[in-house]
């Protein structure tokens, strides 16, 4: 999975900046996507491309349980969020709907990957290749069940028993 990185060098990116409250009344996902990250980066919509990744610090997605947050990012074209850690409700929401991959990374990936770098995420090997900088980093493997839910395409397509 290849794409370019949009980097937010900070911790605690909350769901209120990912999709501000006033847009939670919007049902059309394409319209919702127009407001993704608006609380933090009003230029996000103009710079994001299909297949991009977001890179950020600790506790990404903290705050509200609004599933609109991973939906807005996903419908903007974001395929994965790479972060040092995730708030759990955001993580579950991202996986449940198979909206995007929440990938936990280590400090070396966080520090070395820059805005605009092209990276290649290989889930089968748990590695991230930085094609721009010719570096390779490890990612935290998904637990078995998370991997299976993602493979199946979400909570409702996964048959556990």
């Amino acid at each position: 999975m290849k794409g370019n990185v949009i980097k937010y060098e900070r911790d605690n990116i909350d769901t209120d900046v990912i999709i501000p409250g006033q847009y939670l009344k919007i049902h059309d996902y394409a319209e919702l996507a127009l407001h993704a990250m608006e609380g933090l980066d009003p230029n996000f919509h103009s710079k994001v491309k299909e297949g991009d990744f977001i890179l950020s610090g600790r506790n990404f997605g903290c705050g509200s349980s609004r599933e609109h947050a991973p939906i807005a990012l996903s419908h903007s074209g974001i395929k994965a969020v790479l972060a040092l850690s995730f708030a759990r409700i955001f993580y579950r929401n991202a996986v449940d709907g198979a909206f995007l991959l929440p990938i936990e990374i280590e400090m070396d990936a966080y520090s070395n990957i820059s805005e605009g770098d092209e990276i290649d995420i290989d889930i089968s090997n748990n590695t991230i290749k930085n094609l721009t900088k010719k570096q390779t980093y490890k990612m935290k493997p998904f637990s078995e069940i998370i991997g299976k839910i993602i493979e199946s395409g979400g909570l409702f397509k996964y048959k556990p028993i």
Partner: protein
Amino acid sequence: MNLVAYSSTNQSKIIMGKTLFEKIWDAHIVVEKKNNPSLIYIDRHLIHEVTSPQAFDGLRMNHRSVRRPDLTIATMDHNVPTTDRSLPILDQTSAIQIRTLEKNCKDFGIQLFDITSHDQGIVHVIGPQLGITLPGTTIVCGDSHTSTHGAFGTLSFGIGTSEVEHVLASQTLWLDKPKPFEIRVEGKRKNPHAVTAKDIILSIIKNIGTAGGTGTVIEYRGDGISDLSMEQRMTICNMSIEAGARAGLIAPDEKTFDYLRDRKYTPKNYESLVDYWKDHLKTDSDAKFEKIYTLHIDNIAPQVSWGTNPGMTCDVTESVPSPEDFSKGDHNQKKGAEKALEYMDLKPGILITEIKIDRVFIGSCTNARLEDLIEASKIIKGRKISPHVRAMVVPGSQMVKKQAEDLGIDKIFTDANFEWRESGCSMCLGMNPDILSPGERCASTSNRNFEGRQGTGGRTHLVSPVMAAAAAIEGHFVDVRKMDLN
């Protein structure tokens, strides 16, 4: 399986005690498989207008019904106007969400406390006051502050819309077992009218951080917790999510049982339930917590948040910190403080009590219950708000509003030039017309000071209801311990 552990010294099997959380968890397991999430039974599902519509769409698309409409309870709170309810809702998108919830509840046979109901209110305020929230049960809702119900010894947590659909369809949820986290609150507050439950929970989050509880269920224990009323305990559990925890819990006691006795939906066999709860709903003395944190509250001060997450909080007697104060942490902490001060338009070193405010919001599922309004009214009584401040009270429910009006509390607020509104989430999350204008600074009794939370460009300082009331009077933050009560 959870009963058995191996001691490290002699490798013999010993029986370990369980925490309250583990007891509730074990009682709700439907399917358990090693190294996998467990399927957990959900006793009550609370729904509201914002996070449920797509879940009902999903049910219809897949020709599924609601498995237990009798265990599903709905209200509208997030985007309802707090002005005259007899008038039509001007915001068309809000009106559509409200009508959609009405239709969904009708189609699927779910009890709804609608905008005209005497029982309408913020979902986390009405659950307990109607006796829907019960000790030892599991409660979910598509709202992160579902942790509030933990004050009753209830395992309760927020979920997303896909999971709302899953619970509607199956009354269960897949869940990795969180780790038990003990937070001990020890000691006695010197000024309990001025140093409140809000100051206790803000102090905890300030110390353990906004991700300090990630992956855990917190059990709050100690004399500092048992001293609190039920409404104060709800304030504590409500903000567990601001520490990143899945849920917060307090073991039920006589105060809990008294609170729930004689509510509208209190079960008929209540006294026999109480007997059962007394025997079962407590952490065993030899139970083991994964993590422990202790807060001593003898000398804690009223708290005021200065930044853009609830962990960025200090004593009212302190000054705004400098990003340099965070240079011991990593780069992101210092940068986070810089960004927060820039957004909040605050200079390091100025006293918290020098910060002038434009707006005051007394409301939200954190602090809009009757006691909150009574305590704030004691500060307000006989005084007027500062001429440059606009202040509003949004009671947590229609029942809270009526009880306050019966006590004449509304008059105290309106005499002081506060606006007295209808119940709902209101300015806590900026989904209805009650929002801050860009640049406005608000003393708010809510739970989140994130950028733009109360309106684009709005600046939120989290405080207790008495601190918000004092700030409304003076026009800037003041140490409410120094104010006379009227």
